[in-house]
């Protein structure tokens, strides 16, 4: 161990003062900021659930995840669609009394490698329709975000799936991708060092970075390099591993192979492929030598030593903390933040043996986190934007697993939206993850450009103004109840989540507060009321606060009311919502 001590001497950071805790008022603004950064979108009900609690109580609750393994993705694809019934003479599509096409010939749903429609495919080894399984996986994941509990699980899963970025398209085996995702969920609030060890022999990662082709006669350096450059040490000035260190690490990592045929042993260690020579590292790692181990467990023994050696370098803790800061707070890490935020949290990370939770807790209770300049400073990612829409408006999504066809259709559509906006979940552009999370100088600004901006408007407009999302008529006969389910904003329910919807003044105030990262002026709010909420509709026009109050009261008492003025309320709300989402402020959180 003498070599390692040298490394500590050279690169050891002197003890630093702990991060400054937040001692100010923990009010609605602070709570909203915390929830925006740790959940996908914030709703009135989210705010209500935590109202009156202290900062520590809320943070503890957000970090208290009990269920890390939700039920797995299912076969939502082994089905061919029904056909429209046509007039035998004219060939025209026949409509039912509601003006909708009549569907006939619903096929009986099929199977995928013995996996029935609606059953999970994760234990069935085949890549025959892998693109469908990958789409099912992505839909499932989006669904978990939409239905998230009020805790940080989904945000941290995203953080680490971006950290250990893998492209499902390249891995080309959805079963492996699912295993990687499960591993990420298991460790996302756990021990980072153990996480790195486990990820190094994850089947998806072995495929993605060619670890499964790394053997003693032809070492492949791909994973060995990224393990240091992207996963632990980074490329900052405190990271000084050498090309020879990459080569030596590659030799340590030889011998691991993947097995696509049998999911009970997706990873097989073959000692015959393992390089049993000694691996010598540079002075950056204290000239450490990892002795060749030819035992049956040699690969794992050497991997443990390799990771332990890397984690002796303090830069690992700083690199990860910088990444967490960028993900949760802001991207501009100047020398003050490095000294007062990064270094204390990094020290805490090291002193907690690389447990992730204590670092998050310190960050979310820090003075830095609640600085007003950090509130509303982040441009929403496509996932924050799209998933946030559903959560913010508390859209009811069918929960019954029997309605999986309708659910997966919605989730696939949402996954398509985030892909359109530049965030194809589990298919980032490369092993570095999405550039918006790391690429200086633009960072989150990269989510928005003249190409993606109008797409956002199109997506949010479709969300708010049409009749929502329909599961469609072409659904198999497995459960006809999955047909024609409309998933949309229910304005009467949503209005009730506000404290005082009968006051147009309060309502617009609260909506602006809920929607926007930065405040808007009373002048703009007044215009929203007069020009949008109270605009004329079919010769009916609300012109006074009393009229609005009466109309909303009548509408909320009975959404199917015959009162003409009350019946304008949902459309007025829809127009206001659509318009308010067009503000630049809507894309900040």
């Amino acid at each position, binding site marked *: 161990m003498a070599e390692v001590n040298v490394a500590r001497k050279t690169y050891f950071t002197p003890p630093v003062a702990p991060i400054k805790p937040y001692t100010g008022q923990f009010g609605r603004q602070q709570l909203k900021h915390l929830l925006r950064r740790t959940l996908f979108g914030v709703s009135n009900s989210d705010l209500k659930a935590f109202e009156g609690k202290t900062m520590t109580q809320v943070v503890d609750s957000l970090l208290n995840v009990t269920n890390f393994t939700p039920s797995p993705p299912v076969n939502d694809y082994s089905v061919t669609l029904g056909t429209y019934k046509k007039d035998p003479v004219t060939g025209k599509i026949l409509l039912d009394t509601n003006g909708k096409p009549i569907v006939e010939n619903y096929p009986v749903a099929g199977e995928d490698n013995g996996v029935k429609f609606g059953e999970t495919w994760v234990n069935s080894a085949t890549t025959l329709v892998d693109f469908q399984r990958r789409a099912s996986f992505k839909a499932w994941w989006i669904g978990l975000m939409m239905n998230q509990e009020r805790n940080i699980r989904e945000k941290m899963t995203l953080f680490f799936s971006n950290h250990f970025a893998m492209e499902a398209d390249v891995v080309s085996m959805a079963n492996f991708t699912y295993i990687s995702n499960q591993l990420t969920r298991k460790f996302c609030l756990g021990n980072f060092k153990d996480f790195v060890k486990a990820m190094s022999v994850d089947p998806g990662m072995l495929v993605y970075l060619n670890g499964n082709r790394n053997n003693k006669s032809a070492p492949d350096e791909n994973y060995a390099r990224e393990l240091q450059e992207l996963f632990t040490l980074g490329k900052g000035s405190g990271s000084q591993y050498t090309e020879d260190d990459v080569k030596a690490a590659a030799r340590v990592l030889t011998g691991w192979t993947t097995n696509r045929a049998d999911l009970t042993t997706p990873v097989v260690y073959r000692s015959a492929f393992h390089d049993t020579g000694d691996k010598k590292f540079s002075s950056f790692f204290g000239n450490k030598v990892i002795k060749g181990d030819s035992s049956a467990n040699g690969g794992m023994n050497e991997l443990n030593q390799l990771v332990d050696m890397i984690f002796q370098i303090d830069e690992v803790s700083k690199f990860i903390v910088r990444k967490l800061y960028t993900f949760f707070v802001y991207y501009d890490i100047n020398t003050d933040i490095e000294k007062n935020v990064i270094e204390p949290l990094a020290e805490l990370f090291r002193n907690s043996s690389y447990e992730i939770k204590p670092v998050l807790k310190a960050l979310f209770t820090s003075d830095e986190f609640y600085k007003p300049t950090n509130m509303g400073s982040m441009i929403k990612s496509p996932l924050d934007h799209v998933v946030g829409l559903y959560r913010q408006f508390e859209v009811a999504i069918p929960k019954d697993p029997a309605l999986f066809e309708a659910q997966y259709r919605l989730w696939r559509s949402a996954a398509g939206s985030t892909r359109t906006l530049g965030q194809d979940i589990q298919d980032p552009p490369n092993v570095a993850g999405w550039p918006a999370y790391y690429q200086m100088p633009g960072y989150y600004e990269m989510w928005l450009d003249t190409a993606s901006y*109008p797409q956002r408007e199109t997506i949010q407009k479709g969300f708010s103004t049409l009749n929502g999302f329909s599961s469609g008529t072409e659904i198999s006969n497995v459960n006809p109840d999955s047909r024609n389910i409309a998933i949309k904003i229910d304005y009467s329910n949503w209005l009730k989540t506000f404290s005082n919807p009968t006051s147009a003044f309060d309502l617009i105030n609260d909506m602006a507060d809920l929607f926007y990262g930065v405040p808007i002026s009373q002048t*703009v709010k007044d215009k*929203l009321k007069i020009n949008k909420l109270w605009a004329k509709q079919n010769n009916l026009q609300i012109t006074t606060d009393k009229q609005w109050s009466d109309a909303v009261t009548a509408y909320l008492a009975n959404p199917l009311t015959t009162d003409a003025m009350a019946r304008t309320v949902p459309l007025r709300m829809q127009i206001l919502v659509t318009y308010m989402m067009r503000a*630049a402020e809507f894309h900040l959180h």
Partner: protein
Amino acid sequence: MKRRDFLKNMPVAILPAVVGGMSMKAYGSNALLDALTAGLIETDRVLVIVQMSGGNDGLNTIIPIDQYSAYSAVRSTVALPENKLLKLKGTNGKTGIHPAMQRFWEMAEEDRLSIVQSVGYPNFNFSHFRATDIWMSASDSNKVVTTGWAGRYMNYEYPNYPAGFPNTTMPDPIAIRIGGSGALGLQSLGANMGLSINGTQDLLDMSDYIFNDPLLGDTPGKELAYIREVQRQTDKFGDVIQAAGNKGKNLSTLYPSVANAPGKNLADSLKIVAKLISGGLKTRIYWVNTGGFDTHSNQVNVGDRTTGTHADLLKGVSDAVYAFLDDCKLLKIDERVIGFTFSEFGRRIKSNGSGGTDHGSAAPMFIFGKKVKGGVLGDNPTIDPAATANANLPMQYDFRSVYASILKDWFCVPQPDLDNILFKNFQSLPLIDSSVCIPTDTHDANVKAGDNMIMAYPNPFTEATQVKYETNGGPTLIQVFNNEGILVKVLVDNENHDAGQFDVRCDLGFLPAGVYYVRLQNGQLQQVKPIMKVQ
């Protein structure tokens, strides 16, 4: 002074005398006269990029008839019948094209189609995404480059973009992508040069926009300023697109129009392109997509192999492009438009067990338009009748040679600049009538368009250069990137400035010679300028 600059700076009255010394004929039909009489706008050239996503099966697109027995042996389940292949002009019957590409065959007969055989690059990558990135960035296969080749070209042409754009010199988007969002191919350092549209409707109508609260100088204010700048550009360009869409026309009746007809979606995109060009847009590059080429299984109909999935895909491209060129001719813009197709890879030599073909390597490229030279470039690939399942075609031409030839002969980019854009010197191919590079280049005006906020002198330089920059005040950042987009130096680290002009020394003595990019960021404004370090 370069010759074209010299010509450009001449008073118009004496131009004919100067050009009189050169052969008018060499410039082709009446392009030069058009240039002199109709002004620069009318002569701006357009490139249409047709991306065929999924990996097109090149061996079933252009077929080596001279090796038919080997071809049919290794492709037992997908080989096309010899007597149905359309023989290509100038190949002595040795090279055929898929019969579904009847229209491309006609274009080849008329010298409106050039075919380049076996295009690829060393060390092929078989991932769709990675291979697509390689084609888009024009990088070596083992290098990750975060900018696109066309984006770098456009940054060379309009280095000030996006600051101060649109403007009178360039009132229009520089590049347009129809369907899909910002392609890596159109990405420049820090800015995507392409505007993404799905039609000619206004992208963003900000006319009743009321969210104009004053910006605060804090962090959220900086981000809000950025979003508002994106909105402004989207709005401005949206107006331009709509106006051009209203003014422009489609005259061809040949576009596939029946729902689900092969090529319908591609044709719809190309119709928008023709309409926008005829509507007067000065946009240089249009990017359109057509997908579905990932034919792992059942790519042909068993009963008639000239039909099926792959045949429909090829027919779609061929019919849509043919109609587009017909439209260009009727709209009298055919002198100004060329295009090419690309796909991220070809497919294996041997067909697989499920009636399809797996991810492979080299494949042919098509370059189309009135101004292309026509003909088939390169030899038929050699097919080993004993090819194994993993065997791949070797490349004959590097895809970057095609890019280089287009930039050089169509956009008239001089060789040293070309080498910078593509990172090295690539072989030039005789694809385009090179006499089209008439001296009407608008490069100088383009370089000056927009707000020139940053420049370096001397440039090129050997050790160090002086960077002059302008800031509107507040935090100002100046960085230097290498040509792979990696940050090599920060000259000014977000220091607070008063508004005005400043100087900073940029010493790159420790770095290898080559092209670097200086990037300025000040509030929502950003600008990137190339600088060159020489030995």
